[in-house]
């Protein structure tokens, strides 16, 4: 069983690495430099995957949470919890990359534009997920409460996105490139997205296996006492 798991992991590691090398090649040697923003525009090929993974992770948290509330089978909670651990990482990275991109383009580290603001709120939702877990004494209850956040939070995301977009109005100097998205840019972006999604799956598998081991350890320690 362990060997099979290791093989799957190695396959994903291999595919991810190859795709990532391909992506890096495309970003630096294939895609042309964008007219208006210059070379900094290439952060775009990092930024979109970060945002995408932040949302994908929450989607998995949502699915795991619903199934956990219905079934009470702890494997769904492990799925949700693991995806949340990874999701909060990518959301934090999205915020950092957003700031690093904002500085050269807009001159400030932070701006309350729609996308960045919504990402910040998403980060707060992840934080809420973990806080409600750690502040609950009983673990099973903590898992249930976290599942509630997973569900309510996910349903809220489109509403948050809508409200922040309307709030900020159509941002003219936003992520709209002079001349739109060339096909080579689109191709690079898609490659980058796929590569990062493979990495996400790898991280998710590892995190789930880690959590399962942690749970098993706890059970063993209980037997010993």
């Amino acid at each position, binding site marked *: 069983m362990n060997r099979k798991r290791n093989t799957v992991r190695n396959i994903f590691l291999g595919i991810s690495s190859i795709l990532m090398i391909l992506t890096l090649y495309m970003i630096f040697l294939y895609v042309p430099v964008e007219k208006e923003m210059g070379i900094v525009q290439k952060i775009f090929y990092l930024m979109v995957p970060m945002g995408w993974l932040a949302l994908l992770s929450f989607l998995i948290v949502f699915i795991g949470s619903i199934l956990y*509330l219905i079934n009470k089978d702890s494997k769904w909670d492990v799925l949700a919890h693991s995806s949340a651990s990874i999701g909060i990482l990518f959301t934090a990275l999205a915020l950092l990359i957003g700031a690093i991109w904002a500085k050269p383009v807009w001159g400030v580290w932070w701006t309350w534009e729609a996308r960045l603001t919504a990402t910040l709120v998403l980060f707060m939702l992840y934080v*809420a997920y973990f*806080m409600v877990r750690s502040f609950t004494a009983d673990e099973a209850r903590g898992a249930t409460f976290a599942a*509630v956040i997973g569900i309510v939070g996910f349903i809220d995301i489109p509403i948050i996105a809508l409200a922040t977009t309307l709030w900020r109005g159509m941002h003219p100097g936003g992520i709209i490139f002079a001349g739109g998205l060339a096909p080579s840019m689109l191709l690079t972006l898609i490659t980058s997205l796929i590569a990062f999604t493979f990495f996400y799956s790898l991280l998710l598998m590892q995190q789930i296996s880690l959590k399962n081991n942690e749970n098993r350890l706890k059970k063993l320690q209980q037997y010993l006492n």
Partner: protein
Amino acid sequence: MMFWGKVLAIVRKDTISELRTKEVVASVLVFTILMIVIFNFACSANYELVKSMAPGILWATFTFAGVLSLNRAFIAEKEQGCLEGLMVCPISRDVIYVGKMVTSLLFMLIIEMVTLPIFTLLFNVNVISLQLIAIVILATVGFVAVGTLFSAIAINTRARELVLPILFLPVVVPVVISAVKASGLAIAGEPWSQLYSWLLILLSFDVIFITLSYLIFNHVIEE
């Protein structure tokens, strides 16, 4: 109609208890007025600034007041073991949810309706209008829909007064945004048509989250 009868019973019980102790409404009202005063100092008596910030100040105040009063929704039950008593009654959990929600809604609306004229007086900004009342009602419903659910969760944690805002505030961001924007338009005297998109967001939020919380509440209250 049996359902609403039971809901009203819970509302009655809580209202009577509140009338006796005056815990929630009076103290939150005092807090609200204090917040308005402090915001005034924060704007250093700059009249123009205060006028442009009015909707923001109003809703920041209502949001924090909301957190305070929602915190109290289940605290009494938990501390005096009434929650077990409620659960033993032949009522379903959803009745408890709706009952608590209506109670919180009632208390918050009272606080807000008293605050509006005071706000008008202190800020010289007219916030008493049909538009604004509509906004307040829609937004408050959104607050209590989500807040009642989270309050029931928060009392089962350590640091309950902290957990509620941490859960509640990110989720109600769209409500606050919409309420502030719409209030700004209303104060400026814009026609209803301008407010439609914001009111629509508020309404959708209310409908979606009342339904969602109603469905989820059962899982939270299990002992």
